[in-house]
């Protein structure tokens, strides 16, 4: 069983890392776009927020019959996990960029920065701490939610939890729950260190 736990733990990490990675790739540009088009902010944040309100088990289930992205297995789980990870990443990107001191932005524009230079040299570096905090929340939540992936045959540490519940065997449940909790703590600590490193000076 030890080998099996190690294997599912590794797979669990892959599920979360890939889904958070995709969520960053989608959420960061989406968040930046929203700061450029404030009128879209309600719609975008509303949409990613609504996803968050769907109970996770239901979201996995609802995605199964959807063509192309659905079905039984990891693909569906990755889609669901990515959707969950979007909200904190998009929201924190928007908050982080909006939180840049207006004087800094005005001075940067007054010095003749192009929009692109303003984004890359000023806004993103200054928002990095807040954005990373969003990635951290998305990762920690994702590690918990990913246990449900086992319900649709996508593997991960949830395999032991569902098996343990079915067998009414506490030890098997713990074989899934404890590594998941440890993963969450480790991810939280590691991303916390990174966040402080890029965070605002002073």
């Amino acid at each position: 069983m030890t080998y099996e736990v190690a294997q599912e733990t590794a797979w669990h990490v892959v599920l979360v890392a890939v889904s958070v990675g995709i969520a960053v790739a989608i959420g960061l540009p989406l968040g930046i776009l929203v700061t450029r088009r404030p009128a879209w902010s309600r719609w975008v944040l509303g949409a990613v927020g609504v996803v968050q309100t769907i109970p996770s088990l239901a979201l996995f289930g609802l995605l199964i019959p959807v063509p192309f992205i659905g079905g039984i297995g990891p693909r569906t789980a990755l889609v669901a996990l990515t959707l969950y990870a979007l909200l904190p990443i998009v929201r924190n990107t928007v908050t982080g960029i909006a939180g840049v001191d207006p004087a800094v932005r005005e001075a940067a524009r007054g010095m003749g920065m192009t929009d692109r230079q303003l984004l890359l040299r000023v806004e993103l570096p200054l928002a990095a701490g807040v954005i990373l905090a969003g990635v951290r929340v998305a990762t920690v939540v994702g590690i918990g939610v990913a246990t449900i992936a086992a319900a649709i045959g996508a593997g991960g540490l949830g395999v032991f939890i569902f098996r343990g519940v079915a067998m009414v065997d506490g030890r098997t449940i713990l074989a899934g729950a404890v590594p998941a909790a440890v993963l969450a703590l480790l991810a939280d600590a590691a991303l916390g260190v990174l966040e402080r490193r890029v965070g605002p000076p002073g």
Partner: protein
Amino acid sequence: MTAFVQFAGAGLALANGRTILADLSLAVAEGETVALIGRSGSGKTTALKLVNALLLPTSGIVRVAGTPTRDWDPIRLRRRTGYVIQDVGLLPHLSVARNVGLVPELEGWPAERIAARVAELLELVGLPFADYGARRPHELSGGQRQRVGVARALAADPPLLLLDEPFGALDPITRADLQREFRALQARLRKTAIFVTHDMREARRVADRIALLSGGRLLASGTPDELVASDEPELRAFLEAGG
């Protein structure tokens, strides 16, 4: 004397019809320092932002070096215009040296030339590179930060300086020091400068000529001595409020 900056009936009205600035005509000669003075909401900051095209006039024309701001590439115009604002706006994640060298860096100067220029400017504003270059803005006092702001504005040796209440947030003693230093600097550099302030004493200290704005309109303009003799009521109010 040729006008380096010329407001020709320049005005700015918002989409809701509110007029921020109306029909401003004012010429700033090359090498001259003009103070724009007025109360909050008088349109003086708006006038300043019309010069570096952070705003474009909705009526009239603002010319810089003979070319209407509308026809300037705004990025080029701003890189050739030093801009100092009250809140300084130093980039908090960059060192003092990198802040000062920012415009040269954006302009693609070679690294050695930037380094030499930064050292020269920090020396000029009394913050030697060896002691201050590596510091972050939050490690400086308000007065030091504003000195860095001035050094940054001068970095690419722009012919024109725009200063928006640059010393407004400083204590009176530091402010007087910086006004004196600014004057001394200007005596050497002879940049064309527009200096926005709400303090008549400051205007008289730093400027060759003063223009008084109220409610978006130009009420009076002239040398400090000419204005002292004027009986314009708003002007008297400013003179009596602050020497």
